C-alpha cells in the first residue's frame, strides 16, 4: 500500500497547465526562458571585483558543504550545494524546513555559529573572490555592504531595545562614519523607500510598536542601508498574513529591479515564488535536487520531490481535486538515508535509488538539471 503512488490521479494533469503563465513560454524558437537572456550574460557590472572576468557570476556558490557537530554525531546539513545569481535576477531556493536552505544562506553570509557548524568545503565566489578563504576583516566588509540578508521573524530579528531608525542606520554610522543627523535622515529615506507610511514620525519608534508587515519592511530597509549587490531574503513572508505576504513580495521585486540587485529568495512556499523568481533551485536533505527556470519548473517538474511539492499547492485550475502532501518526514541530517535521500518518500523509488545517490545532471536544455536516476519522461511514463 505504501508503495502505491498517492499522487497518481493528480500528477498526469500537471505537465499541461490549462493556460500558459506567460504567452509563448512553450515555444522553443522564441528567445524565451530557455536561452540565456540579457540578464544572464551581463557581466557583473556593478560588482566591485578584484579582477573582473567576463562570464563570471556575481555570486557563485560551488559545492558548499556544512556540517554540525552534535551530541548524536555529525549532522550533514548542507551536502554539496551549488548555485549562482547575477545582478537584476531573482533566484528562489525552495525546500522544506530542515532542507539546509537557511544554513546555506548563513554560510554564504558567514554568520554561522562555529562551532557547532563547520563549513567543510566549497567556494563562495563573490565577484570571483572566494569568501571562504579571505580574511575575517574582508569577510566582514562584504557582509552587509555587498551581500545583505533579511530574516524570517522580524520581531526577534530586530533588537527590541533600540528604535528602528537607529537600527536601520547603525551600519552607516558605525561603518561609514556618517553623523547622527545624516543617519537619521537616511533612515527616514530608507523607510520611505520600503513604503512605511509616516516614516519621519515613526523613525524613533521601537520594533514592538510596528505590525508584522511593517517590521518586515524595517528589516528590508535595514538590509538595503548599505546598498548591497546581493540581497538574501530568508523566508521573508512566512510569519505574515497572506495579503501582507503579497505586498512584501511585490516590494522585494520592485526594489530588486530598481536597485539592480541580485535577490536570493529562500522559501518553502511554491506559491510565493511563482510571480517573483526567475530561476528556482530545489533543495532536499542538504542537496540540490533540481534547478530550472521558474516556468519550466512549474510546467515540467523533473524531480519526484518537486512534483510532490507542486501537487501540494492549491491551484485554481484544479478545483475539486484533493490536495496532496508528500508522505513521511524529511530525514534527520544526522542520519540521511543511503542512496537518494528522497527514496523513502518517493513513489518511484527503485533498487538503484536505495543503493546510489543520483548526481545533478543537466536535462536537455541549458541550465536545467535534476538529481534523479530517471529522466522526466520515464517518470511520466510510469504514471500512464
Amino acid at each position, binding site marked *: 500500500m505504501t508503495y502505491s503512488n498517492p499522487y497518481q490521479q493528480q500528477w498526469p494533469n500537471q505537465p499541461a497547465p490549462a493556460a500558459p503563465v506567460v504567452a509563448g513560454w512553450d515555444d522553443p524558437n522564441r528567445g524565451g526562458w530557455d536561452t540565456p537572456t540579457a540578464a544572464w550574460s551581463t557581466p557583473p557590472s556593478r560588482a566591485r571585483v578584484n579582477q573582473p572576468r567576463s562570464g563570471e557570476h556575481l555570486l557563485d556558490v560551488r559545492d558548499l558543504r556544512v556540517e554540525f557537530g552534535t551530541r548524536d554525531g555529525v549532522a550533514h546539513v548542507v551536502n554539496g550545494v551549488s548555485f549562482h545569481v547575477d545582478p537584476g535576477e531573482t533566484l528562489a531556493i525552495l525546500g522544506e524546513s530542515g532542507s539546509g536552505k537557511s544554513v546555506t544562506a548563513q554560510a554564504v553570509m558567514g554568520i554561522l555559529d562555529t562551532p557547532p557548524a563547520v563549513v567543510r568545503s566549497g567556494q563562495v565566489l563573490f565577484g570571483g573572490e572566494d569568501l571562504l578563504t579571505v580574511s575575517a576583516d574582508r569577510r566582514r*566588509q562584504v*557582509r552587509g555592504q555587498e551581500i545583505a540578508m533579511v*530574516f524570517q521573524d522580524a520581531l526577534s530579528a530586530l533588537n527590541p*531595545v533600540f528604535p528602528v531608525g537607529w537600527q536601520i542606520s547603525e551600519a552607516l554610522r558605525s*561603518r561609514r562614519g556618517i553623523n547622527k543627523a545624516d543617519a537619521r535622515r537616511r533612515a527616514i529615506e530608507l523607510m520611505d523607500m520600503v513604503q512605511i507610511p509616516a516614516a519621519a514620525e515613526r523613525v524613533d519608534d*521601537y520594533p514592538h510598536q510596528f505590525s508584522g508587515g511593517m517590521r518586515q519592511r524595517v528589516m528590508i530597509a535595514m538590509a538595503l542601508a548599505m546598498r548591497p549587490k546581493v540581497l538574501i531574503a530568508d523566508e521573508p513572508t512566512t510569519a505574515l498574513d497572506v495579503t501582507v505576504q503579497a505586498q512584501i513580495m511585490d516590494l522585494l521585486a520592485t526594489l530588486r529591479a530598481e536597485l539592480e540587485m541580485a535577490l536570493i529568495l529562500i522559501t518553502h512556499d511554491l506559491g510565493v515564488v511563482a510571480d517573483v523568481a526567475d530561476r528556482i533551485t530545489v533543495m532536499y536533505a542538504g542537496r540540490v535536487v533540481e534547478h530550472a527556470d521558474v516556468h519550466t519548473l512549474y510546467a515540467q517538474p523533473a524531480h519526484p520531490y518537486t512534483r510532490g511539492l507542486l501537487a501540494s499547492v492549491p491551484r485554481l485550475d484544479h478545483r475539486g481535486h484533493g490536495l496532496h502532501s508528500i508522505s513521511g518526514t524529511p530525514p534527520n541530517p544526522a542520519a540521511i538515508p543511503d542512496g537518494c535521500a528522497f527514496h523513502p518518500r518517493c513513489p518511484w523509488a527503485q533498487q538503484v535509488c536505495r543503493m546510489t545517490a543520483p548526481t545533478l545532471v543537466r536535462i536537455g536544455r541549458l541550465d536545467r538539471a535534476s538529481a534523479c536516476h530517471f529522466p522526466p519522461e520515464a517518470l511520466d511514463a510510469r504514471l500512464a
Partner: protein
Amino acid sequence: MARYIIRRLLQMVVTFIGATFVVYALMFANQNDPIQALAGDRPVSDNVRQVLTEQYHLNDPFVVQYGYYMRGLLTGDFGKTLTGRPIGDVMSDAWPNTIKLALLALFFATLFGIGAGLVAGLRRGSAFDNTTLALTLVVVGLPIIVLAPIAQLVFGVKLGWFPTTAGARPSLYGLILPALVLGAASTATMLRLTRASVAENVRADYVRTARAKGLSARRVVAVHVLRNSMIPVITLIGVDLGTLMAGAIITEGVFNIPGVGSKLLLGIQTEDGPLVVGFVSVLVVVFLVTNLLVDLLYAVLDPRIRYE
C-alpha cells in the same frame, strides 16, 4: 507612567508605615518599665517619672504613641538615644561610612560580576567559564560570618595587605577589604546572572542580524549583547541592597567600622528602641526608593515594558 508612579508611591507609604510600626512595636511593646529602661540602673523619682510619662505619651494607647513618634520623624526629629544623644547626630556619623562601604561593595560587585560574567557567557564551557562558575558557587554558599573573619585573618593579619580594622574614621583604602567581603555574594549572583543572560542573548536572532550587518564583533557584543543582558542584572541591584545592608551588620562588626550596621546591632543589644526604630525607618525608605528607581530604570532600558 505618572499613574504608575503615584500608585507605587502610595504603596510605599503603606509599606513604610507597616514596616516601621512592626519594628516600633517590637522595640517598645510590652516593655516592663520603659522609664526604668530609659534611666538605666539609676533610681527614678516619682517626679521624673511623671515628666517622662508625659513626654513620651506613655499613658496614651500604643498606636497613639506610634503616631507621635511618626510625627516627630516626619519633621526630622529622630528623638534621642537612651544615653541622651540626638539620634540625628548618630546618623550623620554612621551613614557616610555605610554609604561609602555599600557603594564600594556595589562597585566591586558590578565590576567583577558583569565583567567576568560577560567573558564567561561569551566563552561558555571554557576553562575560564568553569573556574568562575565553581568559584561563584563557593562564594554563594559562603556565609559572611565565615568569609569576614577569614578574609581579615588572611589579607589583614597574615599578608598585611589591608588594615585589619577600619577604625573610627575609616579611609577609603581601609574600606576596600570590608567592601570586597560585603560585596562577595552580590558579585557571585551578578556574575551568574550576567553569564546566563549573555549566553542566552548571544544566540538571539537580533545578534545574528547585527552580525549580518557586518558590524565588528566588538560592537555586536558591547552594544547589542551587553545592553540586552543588563536588563535583568539591573533589577538584581535593587534586591541586593537588602542583602548588602544585612551583611553590613556583620562586616562592620568584624572590621570595626562605625556605620549603620554596627550602630544598629549595638542598639538592638542594648534595647535602645528610639535608635533602632530611627535607623530602620531610614533603611526602609532607602530600600523602597531604590526598588522604585530600579523598576523605573527597567522601563527605560526595555521599551517593551509599559507601566500603567
